[in-house]
């Protein structure tokens, strides 16, 4: 479904990604883990068009999307729940969710039943359901994170990119978030999950890639990576 081949990307002078290749098959959950500064978020941004790759190819459903603008990529069915939440603060929860379905409501994607999907999204995220008319800027960090994820689901996308969904969340909320990811997985949603919390991510994913200093050092079925000491080393430094 989503294929990344030899991707190089960075910001200005900093060449962060040194040629990485990742594959996300349809219906699977793939996770990209690694310590901070490794380049995980850079990868996400390059895929969704927030930054332009320096080299390499990205294909979505066999169509090249590297170099396109993010709104074009979204129309092709790639939803990105970005790092740092990025909800629309002065709009209500409901409006935020409706905007997630913008391409469906404006003819760029098959319409489907938006109101029904809205209710479904709220069922999936009960905390949001209680606050549907509340302004997004007044939500707590955890609730905003959930809103960002729900908003991505509203696109009815081919692939969802989840960028550090657990960032800044208390452990209880992290559990909730991963339960939701599990549910989405069981419904066959294709996801690329970037996470700091290796354990939780590897528990829910089918396949994993470990990113260190801009390159993939290890990859394999998630179950195997869970017990791999190399993964731990990548996070907490060599000394233990």
């Amino acid at each position, binding site marked *: 479904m989503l294929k990344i081949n030899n991707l190089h990307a960075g910001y200005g002078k900093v060449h962060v990604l040194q040629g990485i290749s990742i594959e996300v098959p349809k219906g699977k959950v793939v996770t990209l883990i690694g310590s901070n500064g490794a380049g995980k978020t850079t990868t996400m941004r390059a895929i969704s068009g*927030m930054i332009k790759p320096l080299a390499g190819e990205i294909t979505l459903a066999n169509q090249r999307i590297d170099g396109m603008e993010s709104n074009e990529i*979204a129309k092709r069915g790639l939803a990105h729940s970005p790092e740092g939440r990025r909800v*629309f603060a002065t709009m209500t929860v409901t409006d935020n969710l409706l*905007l997630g379905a913008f391409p469906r409501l404006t003819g760029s994607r098959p319409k489907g039943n938006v109101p029904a999907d809205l209710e479904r999204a709220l069922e999936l995220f009960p905390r949001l359901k209680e606050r549907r008319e509340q302004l997004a800027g007044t939500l707590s960090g955890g609730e905003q994170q959930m809103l960002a994820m729900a908003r991505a689901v509203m696109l009815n996308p081919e692939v969802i990119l989840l960028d550090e969904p657990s960032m800044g969340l208390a452990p209880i909320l992290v559990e909730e978030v991963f339960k939701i990811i599990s549910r989405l997985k069981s419904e066959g949603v294709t996801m690329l999950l970037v996470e700091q919390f290796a354990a939780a991510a590897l528990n829910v994913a089918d396949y994993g890639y470990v990113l260190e200093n801009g390159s993939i050092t290890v990859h394999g079925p998630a179950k195997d990576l869970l017990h791999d000491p190399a993964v731990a080393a990548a996070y907490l430094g060599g000394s233990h």
Partner: protein
Amino acid sequence: MEILLQLVYSGIALGMIYAVIAFGYQLTFATSDTLNFGQGEALMLGALVGLTLVDTMGVNYWVAVPIVCLFGFIQGAFVERVGVRPAIKIKSEFGWIMSTIALGIIFKNVAENIWGRDDLRFPSPLDESPLKVLGANVLPMELLVIAGAILMMLAVEFFNRKTIYGKAVVATFNDRDAAKLMGINTGLVITFSYALSSLTAAFAGILIAPLTLTGATMGSVLGLKAFAVAIIGGLTSGLGIVVGGILLGIAETTTGFYISTGYKDVPGLVLLLLVLAVRPAGLFGKTAIKKV
């Protein structure tokens, strides 16, 4: 007392015009951090095009209004394409300020050459005899201005809140990158804001034309006063603009009458400086938090 009330009414009508123009500044500033320094000229063109339609071509005023609005829409899109978009690309604040000024100058000059330098009379679509409200005189046209301005602003608010396209505009204002991730073409949103902004200015132009003298120079001073209103009310608050407009309008009419017509423009500047000194975000504005 009667005179004071009359001054208040005129002040409100005047203030509402300022508010509508300032509203236009807000629209573009919210989505693109830029505004059209030639906004006054957009108003002037609206008035003059309206004049040609009504006077020379004999079109009914009420039919001319939407035509003028359409004209304003196109003119705004033009300004954005030619003046603002290239400047945003090269990230130059200086660029869009100078190019919108330049376009404003060009429009004014073209208008001078087409319609002449003299001020012209715009035939009033409504009865010219004043009505009595609470014991003071009000021109029906003034009432129309107030009503029209409020209607226009409400219409835009409605658009922003109820339609998905309007929500897309607000989303762009909130977070441009995230809006793009939703599939929103933010470039188009900005063009649209400019088009809408000029539409409101042109609308204001044809509204106010019967009340004052219509000519190539009518726009600049109005555009300027609208700056003052936008700053006083706050570049991010709709209510603030209405309040600011009314405040300024009344301040001007009363100064003009009680002190001298020459000085009527002074309260604007003074208020402007005061507000900036004391509450830079405007009376109703919210200070933004910058992230590092």
